[in-house]
């Protein structure tokens, strides 16, 4: 960053090496091009120069004093020396001073072996010190927040963490407190350091001052086996290193140079949500329901039971009696093979959509992540990308903070990002707020099809260049669509004239008794589909439900047959991220004994059923071809078959122009939710979202409740009881907001926009009485 490339080149000589670089290039970057290392602590390519640490001193001909390479743009004819007595002495002095109060506790420091202070002290330090006084004592093992521990004594006050917090996510929580040698890093407010990107500071920290709670005292870098893979926790698909020791995934790290996808950052879910892999609750044996209870069986028996059931249903009800749900959490190869297998049997009821999302592929107006940065206006429609695709949200923040883009959110439910944003209620207001922006990015959650269509039409009416993005509810949602996990399109979005049933239609048919066998792969509709009652009715009615998952999820608990499946960290294949990039997934660890990947499950089932599957090579070619296909569609297009949804009460009301003066429920998205990887990672306990109901001030007054009080929400038989209240001044009266995907208090008990009865919780009333 920090320089504008005008195309003009200048010549600079560094250690005798002449070099042509764009005018304005910082010396520290120019040296890299010449293959010369200039040590840095405070400087970081993504954060720019700060000029604090003073380790990057170089000698520039014609200048009497040593200069810092990090803030010196090269000029034509500049002659630079990064070696020599003067530089050596300067660097050695700075290093000596860093170590004056440094505890030198390398033997117990997590950073040991990958510490810039250690490395530079070895390379450029004096080796001895004249220090004769005791070292300063500062706080150690400071609990900075749910993710990070701070050791003040190791801190060299480079302020990378502070600058990251201000410049990249714009959170501005970290500050330097005190002054001079008493400097400490802390949050400005004294509250725990908490947002969705905190873990990045542990990577930025050049020393061992900021360490991750999940990795403390676990390993040495040289003991780690590193695998480069793609994160599948969300639809951004950040490149990441998975570092493994003795078969356990201990940490994930960003991949330097991954500018196209992650921009060098990871969110805390992608970084820290890895403990589930070795969770005790992990399924390691197929389970078969017998007389109402699960019995562990072996794979051969499981696959044969399943095949028998399928054959029976096919015979009895035909292919229409079989349903397949899932795909957004599978790899492309698995999704491809599964749809191939089921379609070979004539089964057409295939749909990846198991939650609220209805579309995952934006079509040929889809933008890449870099284009998002260049947008003049960004309109967010639906779930906050900050909760659903955090690293994509960093691009939005970059566009706003660095490039002055205007951010407009239509009827948002989530809290605003820490950057300027305009919240509006309608598409018309959004267009007014955008002004005449020529490049508009639309970031949609794929849920409200009608609003998306209207927004696209409004942008087109303005003649704006449009880039669209759909954040996926599941990491490989777009891959699932491309691979044909849709009722009316096959691999590569090939239209299937004889479409099958969508998830919604399947669930209805199932509840009516028309489905004899249902297979659910990596999906938890009982927690995520916006009508839990329908899902429950369907699961209860279908005679044979097979669920493949890592854990005994809400949905799996209702299954006839539960198949222990592998996670992406345990298998090889590809995914397609929200912006259409085909990304490799590599196995970092082996799956536990008894666990199969969905690919292996598909192959096993195919063998049982006598279906011939394409070879690995053929699958690979098909996946690449399908990933390259670009459907002619835009946001809100229903190309994927019946996208009709469970009764959307609010939409009914909108159409009818009616608005009852009652409290309606809305559902917001939060990053740390779900009944699978998040629920079964004990180290995420402090990060997991907890259910509460956000209430408008007026509604709270009417109910007689205050912040922290508890309420019961009831509709007929369905009830969520004893929910804490959070009064929210920004909320419109008449709307109450629950968080989606909380296992112990699932919001999908209620329909979107449903009018509910809310009363003070009986327990609370009793206490008061």
């Amino acid at each position, binding site marked *: 960053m920090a320089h504008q490339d005008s195309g003009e080149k200048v010549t600079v000589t560094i250690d005798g090496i002449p070099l042509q670089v764009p005018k304005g290039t910082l010396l520290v970057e120019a040296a890299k091009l010449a293959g010369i290392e200039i040590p840095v602590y405070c400087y970081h390519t993504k954060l720019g120069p700060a000029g*604090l640490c*003073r*380790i990057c001193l170089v000698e520039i001909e014609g200048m009497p004093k*040593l200069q810092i390479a990090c803030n010196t743009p090269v000029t034509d004819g500049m002659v630079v020396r990064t070696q020599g007595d003067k530089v050596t002495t300067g660097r050695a002095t700075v290093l000596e001073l860093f170590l004056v109060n440094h505890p030198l506790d390398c033997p117990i420091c997590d950073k040991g072996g990958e510490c810039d202070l250690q490395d530079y002290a070895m390379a450029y330090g004096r080796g001895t010190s*004249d*220090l004769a006084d005791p070292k300063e004592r500062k706080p150690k093992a400071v609990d900075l927040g749910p993710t990070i521990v701070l050791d003040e004594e190791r801190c060299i006050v480079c302020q990378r963490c502070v600058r990251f917090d201000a410049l990249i996510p714009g959170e501005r929580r970290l500050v330097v407190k005190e002054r*001079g040698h008493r400097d400490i890093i802390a949050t400005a407010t004294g509250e725990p350091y908490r947002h969705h990107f905190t873990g990045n500071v542990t990577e930025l920290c050049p020393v061992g001052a900021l360490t991750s709670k999940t990795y403390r005292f676990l390993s040495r870098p040289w003991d780690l086996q590193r695998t480069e893979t793609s994160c599948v926790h969300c639809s951004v698909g950040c490149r990441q290193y998975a570092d493994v020791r003795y078969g356990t995934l201990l940490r994930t790290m960003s991949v330097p140079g991954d500018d196209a996808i992650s921009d060098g950052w990871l969110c805390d879910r992608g970084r820290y949500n890895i403990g589930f892999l070795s969770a005790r609750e992990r399924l390691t044996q197929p389970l078969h329901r017998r007389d109402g209870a699960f019995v562990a069986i072996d794979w051969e028996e499981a696959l044969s039971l399943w095949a028998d059931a399928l054959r029976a249903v096919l015979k009895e009800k035909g292919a229409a009696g079989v349903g397949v749900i899932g795909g957004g959490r599978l790899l492309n190869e698995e999704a491809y093979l599964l749809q191939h297998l089921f379609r070979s049997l004539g089964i057409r009821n295939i749909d990846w959509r198991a939650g609220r999302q209805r579309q995952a592929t934006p079509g040929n107006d889809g933008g890449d992540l870099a284009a998002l940065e260049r947008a003049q206006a960004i309109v967010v429609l639906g779930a906050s990308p900050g909760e659903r695709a955090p690293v994509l949200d960093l691009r939005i923040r970059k566009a706003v903070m660095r490039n002055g883009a205007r951010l407009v959110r239509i009827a948002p439910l989530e809290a605003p990002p820490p950057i300027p944003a305009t919240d509006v209620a309608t598409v018309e207001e959004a267009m007014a707020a955008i002004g005449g922006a020529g490049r508009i990015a639309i970031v949609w959650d794929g849920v409200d099809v009608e609003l998306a269509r209207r927004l696209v039409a409004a942008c087109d009416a303005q003649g704006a260049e449009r880039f669209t993005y759909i954040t996926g509810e599941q990491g490989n949602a777009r891959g699932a669509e491309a691979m044909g996990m849709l009722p009316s399109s096959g691999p590569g979005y090939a239209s299937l004239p004889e479409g099958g049933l969508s998830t919604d239609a399947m669930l209805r048919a199932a509840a009516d008794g028309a489905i004899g066998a249902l297979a659910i792969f990596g999906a938890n509709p009982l927690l995520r589909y916006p009508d839990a009652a329908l899902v429950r009715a369907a699961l209860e009615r279908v005679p044979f439900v097979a669920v493949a998952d890592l854990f005994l999820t809400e949905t799996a608990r209702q299954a006839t047959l539960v198949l222990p499946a592998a996670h992406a960290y345990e298998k090889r294949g590809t995914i397609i991220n929200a912006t259409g990039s085909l990304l490799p997934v590599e196995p970092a660890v082996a799956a536990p004994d008894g666990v199969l990947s969905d690919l292996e499950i598909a192959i096993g089932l195919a063998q049982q059923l006598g279906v011939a599957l394409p070879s690995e090579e053929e699958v690979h070619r098909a996946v690449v071809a399908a990933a390259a296909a670009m459907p002619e569609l835009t946001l809100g297009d229903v190309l994927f078959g019946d996208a009709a949804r469970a009764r959307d009460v609010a939409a009914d009301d909108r159409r009818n122009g009616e608005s009852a003066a009652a409290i309606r429920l809305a559902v917001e998205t939060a990053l740390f939710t779900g009944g699978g990887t998040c629920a079964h990672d004990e180290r995420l306990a402090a990060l997991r979202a907890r259910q509460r109901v956000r209430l408008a001030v007026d509604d709270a007054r009417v109910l007689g409740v205050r912040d922290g009080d508890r309420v019961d929400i009831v509709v007929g038989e369905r009830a969520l009881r004893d929910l804490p209240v959070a009064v929210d001044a920004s909320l419109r009266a008449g709307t109450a907001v629950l968080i989606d995907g909380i296992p112990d208090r699932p919001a999908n008990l209620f329909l979107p926009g449903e009018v509910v009865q809310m009363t003070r919780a009986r327990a609370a009333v009793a206490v008061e009485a």
Partner: protein
Amino acid sequence: MPVVKVLTAGIGEADLREIATYEARGGYRQWKRAVRELSPADVLKAVDASGLRGRGGAGFPTGRKWQFLPASDAPRYLVCNCDEAEPGTFKDHMLLEENPHAVLEGILLGAYGIASHHAFIYIRGEFKRGYQIFSRALEQARAVGYVGTNVLGTGYDLEVTVHRGAGAYICGEETGLLNSLEGKRGEPRLKPPFPAVAGLYGMPTVVNNVETLAYIVPILERGPEWFASVGTERSKGYKIVSVSGHVQRPGNYEVPMGTPVRELVEIAGGLRPGRTLKAIQPGGGSSACIFEEHLDLPYDYESMAKAGSMLGSGAFVVFDDTTDFVKAAHNLVRFFAHESCGQCTPCREGGHWLERVLERFVHGRGLPGDLEMLHRVSGSITGLNLCALGDSIEPFLKSVLRRFPEQFEARVIGRNGVAAR
């Protein structure tokens, strides 16, 4: 005796804090003339021609500094630096309290000279009385239309905002000041960009010292030639020198630039009877000492630099033969270590380390090797820092270490009679 009365004229004789008194003595005439008859370029030309150099410490030519402002339609700001905190300096404090209207008139002229419509004065937190006095003066001037929108019906708008600091030496550094003025932590900024390009709120900004701005009033009144005719070849005009230390009448003395050092000591009443001069710190806590062999040097920027020191802000501290230079050095190093903002390593770590070693010396617990360490570390941290604070630690220490090594040697364990226990 060459003591003159220019900015100090009337102080002690009349209550210059009253606008009527100030005006009766010719005050605000130059502001009225400038805003009605002169163009900003005229004011700049006069300042440039006068040879006026910054009185805050760096001595940078004021007219040149103004010319660094890029031509643009962006708002531009004048900031008056009244964070006077250099050890030994107390001239701005006096001007603020005793001649606030001259300070204000200087600010108005300076702002006009750079065609700014908003000026700020950043007043050191400890100057509460000065803040009150200046604020009252500002209200008086505003009441008669010298400040605000449409100054004196000319159509020129000029707002002046008074800001009190919170008491940090580093906020006297111009970019530390700007950060503090913006409500941020008072830390110097990385340069470039310089304030002339991106200063207050990212806009082109000139930061000038109180005394510097105040001198613009007499420069316009009597002409730049009058100012330039006094002083030495490159150090023009007058200077208020804050003389303190071992003299009989410490105080602020306004003198022509180039007044011999010896005379400055005499002006302040000379040494106490029976005492001999050991050293003079001629430019504030940041400057190296000069000694008796320098007594006949003219007190100007060039001569002080040649003598290995600097004129700085004009804080002139005299040390006689009763001085414990170990304590003096410790006192100053402690000051700088305490005031280090902590941003950059050499200043943050080096200053504190030197302070701790010197503290041992004060208590007679110096160690063999410490003297070499003091020399080496103080020397090596100089020139490595982001701002001038880190480079201010060495000069005094080094100059007295060299001149009075016996005072330090005597505090080394085993050489001081106290001996190692």
